[in-house]
Each structure stands twice: as C-alpha cells, then as structure tokens.
C-alpha cells in the first residue's frame, strides 16, 4: 500500500536534509583559497598527462551485461519464493519447482559458457 511507504519517504527526506546540511555547512564554514596546483587532478605529483576520460576495458561492460541477465533472473524468482508454500499447499509444488529448475538451468548454461569462454577473466 502507498501509505506503508510514507514513513520510508519521511526517513528519506530527513536523510536528504542531513546530507544537504552537511554539504552546505562545510561550504559556508570552510575556507576558499584556490590556486592552480590545488585545482589540478591528482597524479602522484606530476602534471596530469592527457585526459582521464579515456576508453576503458570492455570487461566492465561484459560484467554489467551478464549482471543484468542474472538480476532479471533473480527478480523472476522472487514471486516464486514468496508464494512457494502456497503452491505446495495447493499440491503444485513439484510442478512449479520443475518450471523454476528448468529456468535456472537455462541461465546456468549461460554462466558456464561465459566462464569457459573466459568472459569473466580479469587479468
């Protein structure tokens, strides 16, 4: 119900207020003395070479992609987990279990494939 979420949003509002106050208080109280050295990004004392916004390894993309697939899988499993005892009570336990098991095995094949192909190999 929507009303159950109202306390959650109250807490959210207080948390936002707290973090905003912390930021603003520090900005008001703290000194402001800029200079060029201070404003350059840190690179172990050297002048920064090139931009930091370079291209990065495709591995990270691969991890995120596989993560989405399994996240969606787990999301599909939540309704089953909540109502599994009702299925059992209705005598549909083994049937539903078979459906879920098949679903999980299909995705496990994907995981095994990724591991075998070295898609999750970081070195």
């Amino acid at each position: 119900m929507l009303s159950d979420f109202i306390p959650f949003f109250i807490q959210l509002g207080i948390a936002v207020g707290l973090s905003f106050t912390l930021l603003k208080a520090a900005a008001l109280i703290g000194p402001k003395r800029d200079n060029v050295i201070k404003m350059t990004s840190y690179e172990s004392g050297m002048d920064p070479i090139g931009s930091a916004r370079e291209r990065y390894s495709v591995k990270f993309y691969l991890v995120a992609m596989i993560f989405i697939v399994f996240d969606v899988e787990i999301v599909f499993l939540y309704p089953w987990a909540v109502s599994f005892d009702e299925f059992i009570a209705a005598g549909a336990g083994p049937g539903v279990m078979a459906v879920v098991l098949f679903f999980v095995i299909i995705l496990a094949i994907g995981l095994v494939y990724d591991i075998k192909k070295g898609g999750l190999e970081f070195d």
Partner: protein
Amino acid sequence: MTASILFFVLASVAIAAALGMLISRNPVNSALWLILNLFCVAGLYLTVNAEFIAVIQVLVYAGAIMVLFLFVIMLLNLSVLPDLKRIEWRRIIAFIMGMGLLAMLMFIVANTLDMVPDPVTLQVAAETGSATSLAKVLFTQYAMPLEVIGILLLAATIGAVVIAKKKPV
C-alpha cells in the same frame, strides 16, 4: 485523492525528466535524468498500490540497466555534444499541441469502438500487483513464456560474450 494528486505530480516530473534527458548535452547528465524518470515511474506504480512492481522497477531499471548505460558512456568516452544552436519554440509547441490532438482523437476513436479498458479500483490493483498473485499466473499459466524469457536471456549472455571477445579464445 492524495493518490491522484501524487499521480499528476509524478507524471509531470517524469515528463520533465524525460525532456531533460533529451535536451541535456552531456551523456552522463542525460543518464541522470533518465534515472530520475525511472524513479518517477516507480512512484507511479506506487500510486496504484503495485508496490512489488514499483520496487522491481527501481531494482532492475535504475539499479541494473542504468549502471550498464553509465558503463557504456564511460567506456566509449562519449564527449559532450555541442550545444543546441537555438531551441525552436514554435516547433516544440506545435509538436506538443499536435500530440495532444492525436491523443484526443485516439481516445475518441477508442471510446466509440468501446476499446477503453474499464477503470480498475485500487483494491483490485493491489491484489493483482502483489508478488503472490503474479507468481500464481507466472509459474502456471505463463510457464512456457517464462522459459522462453530464460532462453532469451541466455541468448543475451552468449551474445555479449561473443561480441565483446572478438578474438577466438
């Protein structure tokens, strides 16, 4: 009453965020606007008492898919696009009005053909939107489509690895 006020507030914020995503010239800012939009949509689900769907919306879209978007933006090092030369307000207003007219026409046509779905009470919405009622149809009546989704996700996993690893391993 509160729910309908909330609906209009959230809907307008969602539209504003979607526009912000389109207009923003910096890809990361666009992504942030889209995240705000997804949160508003989750809020819209909440107003019709579909709390399970609302949380899943945040979990999957904001928590997983947008992370991938951000990764891709960083990966490709998309630079900031050049600023829009000038916004042609006349075209934008014309577009909005045209869309409004189209929506009205579609509503009238659907109404005369009796295609407008009956409004659902919040009680019914809460019952059908819960995880339990979802499971009752998902794992019995729609078990086959579920497995097809599984195969689709498998294809996505394999596709990602095949595309990302061009070299034969």
